[in-house]
């Protein structure tokens, strides 16, 4: 069985600033990182590899420099890394992106049966959480979002049981394979690459697939295939916070007040 993990290279958003004049993201000199949620998706795929011996393929759609992200996946232990890169893929929204990724997964499925696709819950640059579900829809896979635990996997029976992390509760769901999972941070702690694996990954090649390989209709992909577009990016004005209690005079009382306030706003669950 093949496990496919979709990962995205994103700008390190803690370092991104918005140009106050043009209202656009200042991306110059900002390093790229692996989308943090995708790092958890990758780890979960590798854990399935460790437990069941599945092969793992990492997929990423992006510009040529996104190869670095896939190299990191190779250093962590994926068996195959494929970069979907073509000018005609550029400017895609979540719909167009999911079309390209679905087609690539379909091609992989022709070589070896895909049982599980894993994505991060969302990316930290777009924050839509739509690409994973979009892929599941296009491929007709069962979609299990917000997974924080794979409780059981029976490859023979082709069934999986996961726990979903929802607001204030958990939900246990069982589904037939193939499935698409989107995972939250709590699902695992990503591993750290060993040096031999890093050195191997430096020598390994990342396959690059363009639309020549995928043969998708150009009207459904890239900017042309994207019904949504971003009209403006801006930083909201931050409202001034409030001081709760008197921390210096009565730290215990202030802490109680703070906890009450957080609970009443549903920010803290007790």
């Amino acid at each position, binding site marked *: 069985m093949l496990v496919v993990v979709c990962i995205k290279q994103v700008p390190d958003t803690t*370092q991104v600033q918005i140009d106050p004049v043009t209202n656009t993201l200042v991306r110059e000199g900002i390093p790229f990182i692996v989308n943090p949620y995708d790092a958890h998706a990758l780890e979960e795929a590798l854990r399935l590899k460790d437990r069941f011996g599945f092969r793992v393929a990492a997929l990423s759609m992006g510009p040529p420099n996104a190869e670095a992200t896939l190299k990191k996946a190779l250093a962590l232990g994926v068996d195959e890394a494929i970069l979907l890169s073509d000018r005609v893929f550029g400017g895609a929204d979540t719909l167009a992106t999911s079309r390209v990724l679905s087609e690539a997964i379909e091609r992989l499925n022709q070589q070896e049966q895909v049982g599980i696709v894993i994505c991060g819950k969302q990316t930290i640059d777009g924050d839509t959480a739509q690409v994973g579900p979009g892929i599941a829809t296009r491929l007709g896979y069962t979609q299990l979002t917000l997974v924080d635990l794979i409780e059981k996997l029976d490859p023979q029976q082709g069934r999986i049981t996961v726990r979903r992390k929802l607001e204030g509760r958990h939900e246990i769901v069982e589904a037939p394979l193939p499935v698409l999972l989107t995972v939250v941070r709590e699902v695992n702690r990503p591993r*750290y690459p060993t040096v*031999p694996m890093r050195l191997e990954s430096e020598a390994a090649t990342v396959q690059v697939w363009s639309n020549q390989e995928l043969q998708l209709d150009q009207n459904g992909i890239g900017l042309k295939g994207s019904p949504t577009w971003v009209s403006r990016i801006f930083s909201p004005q931050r409202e001034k916070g409030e001081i709760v209690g008197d921390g210096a005079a009565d730290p215990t009382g202030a802490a109680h007040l703070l906890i009450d306030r957080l609970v009443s706003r549903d920010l803290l669950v007790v």
Partner: protein
Amino acid sequence: MSPNPKLFAVLLLLSASVFVIGCYRRFSLVALGRPEYRLDSAGARFSRMLRLAFGQERVLGKPFGANHFVIFWSFIILAVANAEFLASALLPQASLAALPTPLQHALLFLFDLVSLLALFGVLIAFARRLFFPEPSLSSDYVKARSPEAFLILSLIAVLMLAYFGLHAGRIALGSEDPSALPISAFIAANLVAPLAIVPSTLAAWSWWLHALALLSFLAYLPQSKHMHILTAIPNCFLGHLDRPNTQPREEFARGMSLGVGRVDEFTWKDLFDSFSCTECGRCQETCPAAATGKSLNPRNVIHAIKTNLLNNGTALRAGEKPPLPLLEPAGETTSGEGSAGEQAIWACTTCGACMSVCPVLIEHMPKIVKMRRHLVQMKASFPEELTTFFENIEARSNPWGIAPTERTKWHGTLQVRPFEAGKTDYLLYVGCAGAFDARQKQVTVALATILDAAGISWGTLGKDERCCGDSLRRLGNEYVFERSARDNVSLLAERGVKKIVTQCPHCFSALKNDYRQYGIELEVMHHSELIASLLASGRLELKRRVADLGRLLFHDSCYLGRHNDVYAAPRQVLAAATGAAPAEFVRNGVRSFCCGAGGGRMWQEEQEGERINLNRVREALRQKPDTVCVSCPYCLTMMEDGLKDLQGGAVKVKDLAEVVAEGLRA
């Protein structure tokens, strides 16, 4: 029962064979280690060997050291007597009697006296182990009252007693001149004659007792901790000449094993060290991890290497995979029997205290770093807090993962210029703590104020400054350190930096010592050194004497003091600022006790045993200070945290730059 050269020759052959086989077994195992060159600067090595081995410099640092000094020198002198004993036992003509009488008498006189001293030394050693054994004599694998220790002491005592018996007998027989042997003559006169002991029987029995004790000692030597008699002196010659905190670089190529995960991946010198340990317990006594109940005991680590090597010897010689692992998975402690526990390996603060007291120059800390290198680089096995630390450094080149754009936020209203070669004299290497840590930023501002007040031309690398990599390297993440050091070295070279001032002893040591391995020679000064010289030359003048900080107590940073020998400068600075020398901890200078944050411990939880910083803060509070004065951002954090935990009340913690800056205020 008279001396029998033929029987003796057979016994000697037997004993010598056991000795040679024992030595061969061990030294051939040492040869399995990786190559390392330790014969450079022979002159410096030789003089150090004279001081440490023959002068017993570090041995004398402890109360019973004088006793060992006496036994050591007795052994050296009596080696001549014993050589004569062996020679004359085989060939009766080859004795001292062949020498001119005055020389013969002089030697006999000396041997007689020294034998008595050695006997006293042994009795004191006996009494010490029996009646006042210090805790550091015992460890997990051996106790102060171990049969081995008593066996060895008994053998030496028997040798001395037999010596006196032999010579007293000979004097009574009239074959030796009593005037040359005052002690033996005393025994002959006061014991042999009154007790009606037959002199010839006494001499014969004593001769055989002496012979058997000597031969037993020879045979037993390589099997025991007394192997150090053979290895300690060469080990003092072969010890590291470089800064011990500067570990060698590693080569990164596919298919190579990194660090040490198997005992034969150590160098031959590392293995030789393990056979040089005298089990004196000095390292164990001084180690902050061991002192606070962690699973690390540097002595056990060295013993584990030795026992692992001995147990795996057969397999290693056959080129097979050793059956006993060198590293035990996390959770196991280091008992010293064959394997080192991973938890113990992570408990080291790399403070270097163990190495500063080892009388035979065993290098504990570099071995721990080598094992860390294996765990991090080959196995990715380390305390989980470190994943975040490593990732933060890799992504943003600082331990907290704060955006590099915020490196200049400490400037506030200060005018801070970028470093420009030719225009600026000093690069102020702010350091991650100096740039990001809220408390340490105040020290950076104080230092900047001092530099301006002294009219120093200085600049920074601003947002381009990166982490120096000290913690990375001590934690064994050499691969990431290597990349980061290369980047830093090329940045420093590109900007034309020659002189650097740092406020962090870790940046200081990395830039000054570690970066030299990357082909850059920088003049690096710790701020204490620069400020001390500015005050001494009068270039920095204080407006007032700092009195409002009360009684100052100075805490030595390991990486400034022990690792770089800077002890005087911070004390001079404080004395100049306050008009009086600071108060001292009981453990100060080279004996200073770590704050607990070095060696990457800053970024790990400390759940085992007592917290190291609390141990140090308790020691501080006994001195009743108003202000604990530090010279390192880690120490600052650890002391402040410890004082909060122990309700240190009004006691403040200040960096020495802050003390000086106080004196600049009108």
